[in-house]
Each structure stands twice: as C-alpha cells, then as structure tokens.
C-alpha cells in the first residue's frame, strides 16, 4: 500500500499488486499489456521472489524486474537470473525512483 502511494506521487502508474509470488506470476500472465517495471520482494508466502522472477522471465525474458529485499544475501542470485537491479531495504523514495528511472531508460 505504501509503495503504491509512493509510486503514484512519483508519477508512475501502478497497474497491479500481488500478495505473493504465485499471485504475481498469475497477475503478470493476466495482463494484456505487460507492465514496464516489476518491483519484486523476495520473502513471500507460497512462492518467493526468485521463483516468481524466473517464471515471469520465462514468460517474457524482456520483463524488467527490480528486486527489493531486506535480505541482501540473495542479491547475486536475483541479478544472475535476470533481475535488472537490486534495492537493499531500507531504501529512500529517491533511491527507488532513481532505479526505476534508470531501468526505464534502458527500457527505451
């Protein structure tokens, strides 16, 4: 809820919010127009961020996924499987916006 507010203020359109990894994959699959950026947490019930990232990238390897986790230990794994960036928690709104922008530029 907080990130939706933060991203909304920053001018981003949040098109979906998932409570766990499985829902994230399902939501991604259901979008007719895929999101430009996906913010992915790691520790989630049912399916974690790494597994969800792998599945989404399997569906569309061009998906831009920014990993955000308080668990720094999975940073390397997240980047190695195709996450575009990794944000250590806690991070500032500025940091988040900068990373999104950076990843968005690469999107172009």
């Amino acid at each position, binding site marked *: 809820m*907080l*990130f939706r*507010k*933060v991203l909304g*203020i920053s001018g981003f359109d949040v098109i979906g919010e998932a*409570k*766990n990894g499985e829902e994230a994959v399902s939501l991604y699959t259901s979008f007719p127009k895929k999101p430009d950026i996906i913010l992915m947490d*790691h*520790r*989630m*019930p*049912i399916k*974690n961020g*790494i597994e969800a990232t792998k599945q989404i990238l399997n569906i569309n390897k061009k998906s831009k996924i920014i990993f955000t*986790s*308080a*668990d*720094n*230990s*999975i940073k390397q794994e997240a980047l190695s499987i195709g996450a575009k960036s990794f944000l*250590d*928690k*806690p*991070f*500032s*709104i500025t940091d988040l916006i900068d990373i999104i922008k950076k990843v968005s530029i690469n999107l172009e």
Partner: protein
Amino acid sequence: MNEEIKAPEAKFKAIINNIKEGYFEVDLEGNLTFFNDTLCELTRFSRSELLGLNYKYITDEESRKKIFNGFNSVYKTGKELADFQYKFKDKHGKTIIGETSVYLKYDTKGNKVGFYGLFRDITKRKEEEEKFKAKLERLVDKRAKELKESEEKYRLITENANDIIDILNRNFIIEFANEQATFNILGYKSSEVVGKSVLDFLHPLDKNKGLNSLLKGTHEKEGMDEIRVRHKNGTYIWLEVKGKVFVDRNGENKGILIGRDITSRKEGELKLKESEEKFRTLTEQSFLGIAIIQDNLTKYVNKRISETFGYSIDEVMTWQPGEFIKRIHPDDRNFVVEQVRKKQLGEPNAIDQYQFRGLKKNGDIIWLEVFSITINYEGKPADFVTLIDITEKKEAEAKLKESEQQYRSTIDSIRDPIHVIDKDLKIILINNSIRKWLKILDIKEDIIGKKLNEVFTFLSKKVFNEYIQVFTTGKPLISEETSVIKDEIYYTESIKIPIFSEDLVIQVITIIRDISDHKLAQQKLKRSKRKYREAFNRSNFYKDLISHDINNILQNILSSIELSSIYLNEGKDTNELKQLLKISREQVSRGANLISNVRKLSSLEETEISTHPIEAIEVLNQSIDFLLNNYQDKKINIDIENPYKTVTVQGNELLIEIFENILINAVKHNQNFPIELKIRVSKIQKDNYNFVKFEFKDNGIGISDPDKEIIFQRAYSIDKTISGMGIGLSLVKKVLNTYQGQIWVDDRIEGDYSKGSNFVILIPEV
C-alpha cells in the same frame, strides 16, 4: 473053459476081498451091484443092506450132483476118473469122505452097463488135511497181517517222512515218490513225477554230475550227492541225495533215493563263501592294515600291513610266535603286548582303540592307530587288528599344537578382549584380556563351552543376529554395541571375523574394544557441536531478523516518514498523514513484538520451562480481547464453539503467546472483509492420552501444502524464504513441545488452501 473062467474070478474075488480099499460096481442108475467086504466095513452097512443101495440114499444134494457129474463124464467120455472125492453118510449118519477111481463098465457086447472103481476112506486124511490147512491158513493170515502191518508201517514212514523218498527202476524212471515230502519240498504231486526220469528234474548244470552219481551208485550199490532239483515253481532246491540199490520181490534191481532239502544250509554256505570273498576283497583293497593274531602268530595280514611296516606278506606270515613284538617301539611295547594278549584271550577289559609307535623294517618310527576286537578264528579267540598309519596326522597335530600355542600367546598378548564361538554360539576360546574383563563384570571365568547368551546376558538380540549374519554370509562385520551393566552404559566396538573350514564358516573370532570413553567423548563433542550449531543458527537467525525483518520495518517507517514529508510539503489533508503515522506506529509495534518474541524464544532455548495446570478458556478469552483491541480498524467476526465452562490443561503463562500468535496471524494474513474467525474447543483422546483440541479457522490467504510443515521450522532451518510470520509459529511450536502438545495446520476447506487455514492445537488435559 469054465474052470479057466472060474479060476480068474476066484482069484479076482480073493484079491478084492483082501484089499483094504472098497471095491464097488454100480449100474447106470447108481445102484450097487457088487462090492467087497471092505466097502461094507467102510460104510457100516451089511452086505444085504448095501446091495442094491442107490448112491442118492447116502449122499446129500451137493455130493449127489458131484457124483452124478463125475460118473456122467466117465459115461460120456469113457475115460476113467481118478481120485474123485465126494462125501456120503455111513449107516450111522457119519460123514465119510471117500476118494474113488471110476471106470466105465461094459458088457460083453460092449454096451455101457455101469461103473466100477476102488473106494478109499480118506476122511481121516481129509480131517488131517483140513486141520493142517486151517493151521496153515491161520499162519498165512498171521503172516499176512504182520506183513500188512509192516507194509503199513513203512508206508506211514514213507508218507510222513520229511525227506523225499523215490524208487527208481534201472532206467532211473521214478516208480514211486512219497506224496507229502515230494510236494512239500518240490511242489509236485507224486503223480507228477512218477513215470518220469529223475534226470528231468535236475538243474541243467547238475545233469551230468547227477547221471554220473546214479551210474556210480548203481555200480557200487549205494551213493550220495548234493544236487539242485527244480521246484515246480521254477526255482531250484538243493537236495542231499542218498541212494541204495535193492532187489524187489520180482527180483529186479531198483534204486531207492532219499532226498533231503539242504537249501538253507547251501545258501548259508554260499553266503559264507560270499562273505569270505567280500572280506578278502575288502581287506586286500582296504587302506587300513588288517591282521589276525592268534597264539602270538600272525595268522593273516593284508597288503597294507606289509606296506606299512615295509615287510612282504610272506615275511610277516613266517614270523615266529611273538616276533611281531619287535615291530613295536620299545616305549610302547609293554602296553601293546598286554592289549594284544588280552584280545587274543577275549578278555573284556582290553582297550579297543589306541595309538602306538611302530618300527618299520628300515628302522623308521611310524605312528599307528589301532582298532582291535576279539574274534573267533578257526574255533579259537583271536585278535582282529586294524591299523592306520597316522604319522602324518601326528606330525600335523604337533605342528597344529605349536601353531595353536603361537596363536594363543598372540591372542593373549592382545589387549582387547577376544573370544571364539562355534556355530552353536558356544564359546570355545578366550584370551587373557577377556578374563580381566570378566572379573570387572563379576562373571565367573569358566565360560568355555557355554553359550554366549548365558554368559553375556546383557547382549542385545542385534548382536546374535550379527553372528548369524557372519556365519551365513562369511563376511566380517564391525559393529558397535551399547550395553547397560550395573546401571552403567558401556559402549563397545566388536569385529566379528569368520573362520572357514571347507568353505563353511565354522567359528567366529570376536575382538571387542571398549570404546566407552571414546564414545562419551564423541557424544560430548557431538553435543558441543550441536550446541555450537544451534548457537550459530540462533546467531544467524537473530542476524537475519535484524537484517531482514527490522529492515522491512524500518523500510515501512522510512517510506511513511518520506511520504509524510511530501504530503506536508504538498499540503495534503491530515487523514493521509494520520494513515502514515498509523503505519509507522504499527511498524514500531511490530518491531517491539519481534524483540519480545526473540527474548521469549531465547529464554525457551536456554532454560527448562516447567508446566502446571492452567485454565485455558480464560487465557483464550484474554487472547481474543488482545486481538480485538489491537485490530480495531479491521472488521473481525469471531465465532466460538466451546461446550465447556472451564478446561484445564498442562501448560504455563506462555499459553497466551500461543493463542495470540495464532489469532494475530489469522488477521495479519487476511485481506478479506470481514475477517472470519471460528474457534472450536473439544476434547479428544490420542495415543491413549487426553487432549484439549483448539481449532482456529480463518478465511485468510491459506498455506500451501509444502509450506504446511515448514512454517513451524523457521527458527531451526533458517529458511529465509519463509516470510511474513516472523518467528511466531516456531515459538508456538517450541512452547507446545514443552507441554507435550502438538500443532499442525489444515485447510479450512479441505483440498483448497486458498480458502483459509485451520490451525489445530492439542494440549494435554489435566
């Protein structure tokens, strides 16, 4: 002329009247016409009474017929009838037997006119004859009777004889065969053999021999032979046949044969012969030396004996009495000679089996094993000796003994206890070390021959199964055993090594090592390692809590502050700010709760927690109140199904943590509006224990099957992927473990975890 006639007539009359025989003349009717005086005297009739008397008057019917027929034949044939006898009665009625000659009388013309003859009174002679005849007949009858009795006697003897009795004629044809014996011995009826040649019944191989015997017997008047005769059933019976020639009543030479069944004897003889041949074959081919000693002489030796001692059989057989003694080693001589003496005399106290040293012809010493018995040889007791050369065995035994001594001193020098058991698990060997061990265990030392389980009563079934395995597979086995002896735990390591004989495991050597110290040190190390690992895991866990959960909390607080700042700058309404403040407050509360749980968990892990009876419903109600107070912003419907006013369980003050954790999770992981909670309290029995069952059903996000177990494990497994529930559930499980309780999670609606969860808790009822 008349004179001439008268003179012969007178002369005739003078003669007639002077002879002692009666003279008669009768006419053709039988009337007396002329007779002399003698006739009157013989008939007691006077001349006048007699003249003209018809013969019919003085004869009976039988004589009458006889006389008529006699005279008639003379009349018809003209031939005289001499010595014609007949009976008549004299004047006094006495029967007179007369003997008459009868001639036909002619007249001068040649006509038959009557008869004449001389008559003699033969009554006395006849009476004498009759008497003699009667006497003779009596004699004949007597003899006949005696003969008959004799014949009967012989017949009975013949018929009842056990031996076959045949009578042959000169052509060897059987004329008589006694019925019973012929049938009993040969199966034939007498009628089946009579009329046939005795040779027809002989064994084909004995026919020539039989014929020769018969011919020889005929010549020598007697003979004897043993011969095979065919039984009616086709088998052959051995008969001992004795024969004798005799002359029968007709004066012909006959042979009488008496045959005795000697089949049993013959078979016995054959068996004896076979037995003797077998004995000879066996002894000649035997690898055992065989000798018969009688009167201190070697009466028999086989080839093996001669080979054993290096003498030829001829040399041995020509030994002087007692010479065999020289072939016995001087040290053993007295003993052996004594045994041989006893055996030769058949004394009962002689030793049957012994070993001694013999001397070969070349002087070499050989070890011999003797088996000897007293036998009857040629009617006297003798020593029947069997010998076997055991020199090699003895040498091998000596080597084995030496080897065993070495083996024993080796195993005795080993510090580890060692025992050897056989297939029956009987102890057959132990070393010195095991003796020391036995003393410590208060086990008597005489364990040889006893079964392993009788001696080491503390051994488990596993150990015996291991021995069976080694005996079966032939593979060595290393294992560890734990034994409780005198309330102390001993740890041993044993190596079970199979000993083979002809590919079969016959014994197992066990080398035992007391590894109790090592084991205790190992256990201490293990415990230490576990503690270290637990401490390490705890450390990691707390580090993870700080780095992750606290960072998440801080993230939320930071984001709230930053947003608040933006909102303030943008002049947003206070409601937005209030919401952000609330989030910050919640995050602070979450952090505080996390720290509290860490403390409790830490305290549980470091100390033993005691339990006591506690009233659970009251605690449950307190937990519900706590939930509702803390989540006033959420719509929570709680339905409680509890038939009991009070329920006492075995627990402690941490019970409230259990209920609160479950309830808070049910609300926190629930996006529904309203949040539905159903709490059910019941009592059940499980594994013979009474439990109080608490079920917490929610309509939250649910827990997938793979996560159903690991959600309780975070504190141990440090699975960082488990998210969202902090350390709550692992704390709950740990507390319940101290209660001997249980916890698990089911789907609220079976098979569909997304419809929410049902947390089930069992706590022992008091």
